[in-house]
């Protein structure tokens, strides 16, 4: 019996081979080509890396990328936490409605949603017309091609990536613990701060890391809704390829981006376990 099981198991294990070969050829090999382009021109050189470090423009792009990502993560947490809390504590039917309202935009093309913001936040768009009509502002405001536009667009896209991991953790918290604390005389806000909040922290960590990682590599939204002050590593890589045909720099910036993301990902999966991070996105 044990022998059969073992034989069976080894056959099953072989099923990973097609995907493994495909990944090595079409995923790992291309990534190694990036590294090659960043180190060889055509002989081994560190000139691209030296120039990235010496040129303020590239440093600025790295700074922009981190600034945008930190802000997006913060906004997603501040907005997503109460929403996930409500989903945890409300009726099944209300939660189902909320989930559907999150999932439909979540699975709609990012390009479509970004284009929609161009229409909504434009000079004569819905928001500006409302603001002027209500009398909050005298003339249409500049809501696009700046940090505001980028934040609106990216938070709209990334908020579900915060809410799902948060809800995943919160829904496993035993609400009876809170009832016990209440019955022992603790006021609601104390119950929340001392019981619920600490138990939900793994979800906070998972959501923040996921949103931050995705924000660092984000391309479409900063490219369309941002201005010159929001040039990120991702948009700069595209510029290097399509406008300047500077493959060496594009490759080097790609490696920088990869190292930043890979470093955070490796650190976090070691600390928290992989399932917490990737489990939420597929909800």
């Amino acid at each position, binding site marked *: 019996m044990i022998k*059969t*099981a073992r034989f*069976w*198991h080894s056959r099953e*294990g*072989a099923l*990973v*081979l097609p*995907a*493994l070969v*495909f*990944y090595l050829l*079409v*995923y790992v*090999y*291309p990534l190694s*080509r990036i590294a090659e*382009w960043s180190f060889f021109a055509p002989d081994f050189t560190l000139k691209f890396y030296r120039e990235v470090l010496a040129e303020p423009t590239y440093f600025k792009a790295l700074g922009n990328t981190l600034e945008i990502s930190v802000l997006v993560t913060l906004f997603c947490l501040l*907005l997503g936490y*109460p*929403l996930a*809390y*409500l989903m945890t504590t409300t009726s099944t039917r209300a939660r189902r409605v*909320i989930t559907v*309202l999150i999932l*439909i*935009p979540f*699975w*709609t*093309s*990012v*390009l*479509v*949603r970004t*284009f*929609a*913001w*161009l*229409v*909504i936040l434009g000079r004569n*768009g*819905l928001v500006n017309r409302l603001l002027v009509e209500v009398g909050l502002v005298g003339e249409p405001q500049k809501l696009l091609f700046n940090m505001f536009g980028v934040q609106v667009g990216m938070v*709209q896209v990334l908020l579900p990536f915060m809410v799902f991991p948060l809800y995943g953790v919160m829904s496993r918290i035993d609400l009876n613990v809170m009832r016990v604390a209440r019955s022992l005389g603790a006021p609601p806000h104390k119950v929340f701060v001392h019981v619920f909040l600490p138990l939900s922290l793994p979800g906070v960590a998972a959501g923040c890391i996921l949103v931050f990682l*995705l924000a660092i*590599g984000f*391309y*479409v939204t900063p490219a*369309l809704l941002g201005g010159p002050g929001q040039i990120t590593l991702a948009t700069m890589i*595209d510029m290097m*390829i*399509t406008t300047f045909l500077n*493959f060496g720099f594009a*490759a080097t910036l*790609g490696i920088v*981006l*990869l190292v930043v993301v890979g470093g955070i*990902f490796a650190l976090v999966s070691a600390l928290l376990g*992989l399932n917490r991070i*990737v489990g939420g*996105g597929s909800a």
Partner: protein
Amino acid sequence: MSASRIALWVLAAVLLTFLTAPIVVIMITSFNATPYMEFPPRSLSLRWYANFFSSPQWYDTALLSLRVAVMTMIAATVFGTAAAIGIVRGSFRGRRALEAFFVSPMVVPIVVIALGFYFLFTGYQLLDTPLALFLGHTVIATPLVIVMVRAALQTTNPAMEFAARSLGANFWRALWHVTLPSIKAAMGSAAAFAFLISFDDVVIAIFVAGPDSTTLPKRMWETIRFEIDPTLTAISSLLTLVAVVVLVAVQSLRRIGAADRME
């Protein structure tokens, strides 16, 4: 209801409006009779939809997107399902590490992946071909298939497969008649999402597609950057509709999957 509870609901309503506003506004705007993308429209028409279906420069790109998405869906589902079964049922060293590797394209910035494809396909003269798009999309769609099928496999009972084997079924028969039927709902859902990932991709298309392989999102991207064409609002509504259809399909598959487990 307490005051804090009401505040929570108000915030939730604002957030859900914020999340759905882009697609709702763009769908309503798409019925404008004028080219000014007014919201709400003063007069209604279907002219932008007619424009989309009657101009080959839009319609052909949609057909290419469809072809690439169907091929990607098939390849990603086959690779992903096989890999997930191998990871869950197999017993070999480094399974966790292999799984992390398989899922990693989800967190590697897509721009970096696309840049890699650019270098790869330039080298083999595959730039600006549907094949390049298909290979690239399969890389970004397979991880989700693995995650979803793996989750489904963990709820099934491997004893059924052992039973089939001990009754004389060979490896492939047990796989085909026992394992796959028990996860077919998850495979269907994963396939639907793989289709959508390919159909909506713009970043890989920006890097590897050219005049001979322009997908619908790539054409949209170019149009948005140079002029704002109201036809985009009609296309946006149609793409939203595709996403809704996929979600409804996944939802019904989930019910089938639940029923399968009850049996």
